[in-house]
């Protein structure tokens, strides 16, 4: 993932790495990583933030000094101190611990949504480009219609029908993101189909499945990875907005957006740290994914610049 390819060899290496790790052995990964960090310092910073986030999500029990729902006697709405780095909330819970556990919610929603969205988007985009004709026309009009809905409005409406909950947030966000991404994937697939090796494969009598899986999919991997990285930031932002409005992940799960609504707003004038830190966490997380995604785009697929 962390490779750079501003030179043609770099591009070959990066593509090879994406297609199953060939071309990168042992310490070569470290060299590539170092090169990436030198050429794209902001992207590397984004990468560091993302890794920190992943560690926080995976080892929340070890990192957080308290449980996310654990009340601490005599520590109601205490400002940040050595004992409670980010202060405590109105229910005497440690904010730092809640922010750490919040990473788990954001990362879970983010990765599940993106995984689902990538599957949908690739299926829609690739089939639309590959089969074309009436199918393409029909699918693209559906995507058009879907894209003309403001995301927050359609998701709120869907959540009103489905009811709040982690699973429903994931499904509705995934469908929405899939629509946007399928356009880009369709474009990338159309580009990949121009290559003569696709024609050669067809001439050799390869079936649709083989052409799609062996020849088209590997060529759009870079596009998909970039879309996924940038999409992760967008999903975390959207989930926080939904939770803020009370349609996201229900309490007591410590969602960053949820922490900013309800009590975070009720007590914000008396305990501003309750409203500050979850927002800092959201911004940092989204910033990290955006920076990393931007750098990956420059490195892996210069054609997507400015899109």
């Amino acid at each position: 993932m962390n490779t750079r390819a501003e030179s043609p060899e770099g591009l070959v290496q990066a593509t090879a790495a994406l297609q199953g790790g060939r071309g990168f052995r042992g310490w070569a990964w470290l060299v590539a990583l170092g090169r990436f960090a030198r050429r794209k310092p902001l992207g590397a910073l984004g990468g560091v933030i993302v890794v920190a986030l992943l560690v926080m999500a995976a080892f929340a029990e070890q990192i957080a000094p308290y449980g996310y729902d654990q009340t601490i006697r005599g520590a109601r709405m205490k400002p940040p101190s050595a004992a409670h780095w980010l202060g405590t909330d109105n229910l005497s819970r440690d904010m730092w611990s809640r922010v750490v556990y919040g990473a788990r919610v954001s990362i879970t929603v983010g990765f599940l949504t993106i995984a689902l969205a990538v599957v949908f988007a690739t299926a829609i985009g690739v089939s639309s480009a590959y089969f074309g004709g009436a199918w393409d026309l029909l699918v693209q009009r559906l995507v058009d219609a879907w894209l003309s809905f403001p995301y927050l409005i359609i998701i709120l409406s869907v959540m009103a029908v489905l009811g709040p909950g982690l699973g429903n947030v994931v499904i509705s966000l995934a469908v929405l993101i899939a629509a946007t991404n399928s356009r880009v994937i369709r474009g990338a697939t159309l580009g990949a189909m121009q290559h003569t090796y696709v024609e050669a494969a067809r001439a050799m009598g390869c079936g649709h499945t083989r052409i799609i899986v062996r020849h088209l999919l590997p060529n759009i991997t870079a596009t998909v990875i970039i879309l996924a990285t940038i999409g992760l930031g967008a999903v975390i932002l959207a989930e926080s907005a939904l939770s803020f409005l009370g349609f996201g992940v229900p309490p007591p799960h410590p969602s960053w957006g949820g922490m900013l609504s309800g009590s975070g707003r009720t007590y914000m004038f008396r305990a501003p740290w309750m409203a500050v830190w979850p927002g800092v966490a959201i911004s940092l997380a989204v910033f990290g994914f955006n920076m990393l995604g931007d750098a990956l785009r420059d490195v892996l697929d210069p054609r997507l610049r400015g899109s």
Partner: protein
Amino acid sequence: MLRRYVAKRLLIAIPSLLIASLIVFTLPRLIPGDAVQLMLAEKAYAKDIEELRVKLGLDRPIYVQYFEWAGRAVRGDLGESLWTRRPVMEEIGQRLPVTLLLAVLALTFALAIAIPVGVISAARHDTLADFVARSTAILGLSVPGFWLATLLIVLPAIWWGWRPVGDFVEFSRDPWAHLRQMLLPAAILGIAASAALMRLTRGMLLEVLRQDYVRTAWAKGLAESAVVLKHGLRNGIIPVVTLLGTQLPQIIGGTVVIETVFGLPGMSRFLFDAINQRDYPVIQGVNLLVVSTVVMVNLMVDALYAVLDPRIRY
């Protein structure tokens, strides 16, 4: 020529609009049966389940329901709110100006920031100014609007005892105060859009500035402003106009959060309340209106293309 193109685009927009209306229409039909009972028990929308079904139009064949609903919607009749028992159109009409003003102000704000910063960033690319502008833009895309709004309400209040949120002032009562109370929410709403627009302006301008005719313009000895603004910006601005069209749904979506945080009685807050109250005719009505607006604006954006770029001939 342009007229024919617009007519063609209109023909393509119609199926999109029809599909969108189908999605809007299907939403309440996805409610599981017991949700209707829940609405009955919680909100006392009707005397019994049959009456509520009739009100929601769930008692007839689905295609009859759709054509009837769509037919009435075309004539401007979106049914009546279950909650206030007044026509949805009337309720929206009262609140639409607030949301519209907010969205227009936000777009104006976004453009006023994005274009100059994008131009400077491209003209002085890879300098400190460019670096700062780009990093700030990514930051602008990363900060949730509702959090920024919360901070701007909380921190000045704590530090200087100043509160931006007071009682809502109607336009008819004091136009100037009405406009003033919208400025801060609109600015916050415009930040994400301005970051996206700035990045695209910069990218497009950088591409154009590498063209031969720009080198010719430099060689002719034209001033930098003439080269960058007349030869560069005019040719680089077209994709920015498209993005403006796609930013509109984002901004309208953002109004849901901003109107809630700032307590503005706009259409989006109305929708949010309707969602909380499961007021389906209102949800359908607002969604339909929003989608139609977005489709129409995108159509206008396409037409604007031809005006901005005489090379485009349809």
